[in-house]
């Protein structure tokens, strides 16, 4: 199996973490988004939508991280807590995976984009009111994660980790990588993060998050041609 990934990307991190946690053998195919490698002719043959992650299992190509996670867990039949077979715990995982697309993923990405990508593309810091609005959105998502999805449980489904927690932590770490410490003032979130880290293994967690935690190194050394190519798209997004 091949996994086309850039660990800057949250959905790539969740796929990477679950594949490693389940000991699924795979070839890591690095697609460097900052160098515009997703626009290469070669990658276009893998995914015409030019996004990561992508999974290639023999001739079967699959995009969308939550689809890939379901496929991997079903195929490799690891411990069932990753994607429970019981009706209601499974529903809770599906509920989280569905909710997060337009909530934590969107709000966490927005903060990251404004803090890291905006200055690169627009030549100045993001306007305060945009940043404040983005932070409000992120705070709302984090509150819902804590108060609705976690509540008093150790993990989203209860006593055991599932793909929902992995997807959640990958998203939470995105604004963290951009310098926003979302854990300050959120003891419940801290404790949950530490539990997730312990279940995945500290080393694996660190490996998955190494790139995002050093994102400023990457942005300072970004390929100028690739940057120019990406500017129109981002300028449209930010306007």
């Amino acid at each position, binding site marked *: 199996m091949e996994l086309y990934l850039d660990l800057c990307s949250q959905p790539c991190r969740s796929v990477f973490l679950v594949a490693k946690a389940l000991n699924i053998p795979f070839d890591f195919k690095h697609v460097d988004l900052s160098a515009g490698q997703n626009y290469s002719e070669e990658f276009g043959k893998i995914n015409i*939508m030019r996004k990561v992650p992508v999974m290639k299992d023999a001739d079967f190509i699959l995009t969308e991280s939550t689809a890939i996670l379901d*496929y991997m867990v079903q195929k490799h039949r690891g411990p069932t807590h990753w994607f429970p077979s019981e009706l209601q715990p499974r*529903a809770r995982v599906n509920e989280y995976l569905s909710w997060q697309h337009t909530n934590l993923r969107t709000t966490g990405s927005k903060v990251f984009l404004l803090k890291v990508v905006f200055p690169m593309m627009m030549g100045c810091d993001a306007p305060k009111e945009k940043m404040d609005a983005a932070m409000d959105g992120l705070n709302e998502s984090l509150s819902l994660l804590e108060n609705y999805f976690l509540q008093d449980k150790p993990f989203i489904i209860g006593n055991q980790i599932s793909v929902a927690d992995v997807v959640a932590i990958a998203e939470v770490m995105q604004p963290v990588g951009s310098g926003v410490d979302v854990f300050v003032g959120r003891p419940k979130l801290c404790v949950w993060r530490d539990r997730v880290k312990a279940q995945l293994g500290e080393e694996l967690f660190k490996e998955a998050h190494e790139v995002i935690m050093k994102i400023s190194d990457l942005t300072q050394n970004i390929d100028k041609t690739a940057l120019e190519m990406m500017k129109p798209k981002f300028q449209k997004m930010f306007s």
Partner: protein
Amino acid sequence: MALELFLDMFSQPCRSVYMFAKKNNIPVEVRTISLMNGEHFSEEFGKVNPIRKVPALKDGDFSMGESIAMMQYMAEKFKTPDHWYPADLQKRARVNEYLCWQPMGIRLHGSKIFWLKLMLPSVFKIEVPKEKMEGALEDLDSSLKLIEDTFIQDRAFIAGEQISMADLVAVVEIMQPFAAGVDVFKDRPKLLAWKERVVQAVGKELFDEAHESILNAQEAVKLIDSSKMEAFRPRVIRLML
């Protein structure tokens, strides 16, 4: 006791859940929650879904939100025909792929058109800047093209020869901008043909029933009490403009 579904048929995900439940003869009690009248802010509804969104499901003591997760729950619990959410690994993956792509891929764009074309001018009396509308229409256009070229291609339905949850979820999103007056099917014979197949597979009567309110939206919005919606103005402006 029958499963309770809390729905507002103006909402795309409510329509997919409704059609799925009814087509599969799942014993459900439909409870209408009028978003325009703020019924999702009631204390009672807050106990069903603290996130205060529709659709929501209550099965005895178990409540949940999120339409796709709800359909997956109903499919499993009531053992609906396999084609709705296939057990086969690769077929299921294709359904999941669409279901995961669609929130940002089409739902976002179709909803935005609905708000920009209908809700903002009629309810909030906001004139939408030309370039915002054009940008939104461009985004919708790109999404519809992707649906045709990548997700449907030459197949009868998204996952193959038979309808699945993916088609239900797709069609309701496409009907939203359509209801706002954008002819999404113009110059898109493939999309139109697929839509007709979906209508046939669901049953025309059920499809029409599910879409009755939204297809009357242009008239219905004129009856909305704008003063009740004022509290939402800042949020609507922030999200849509």
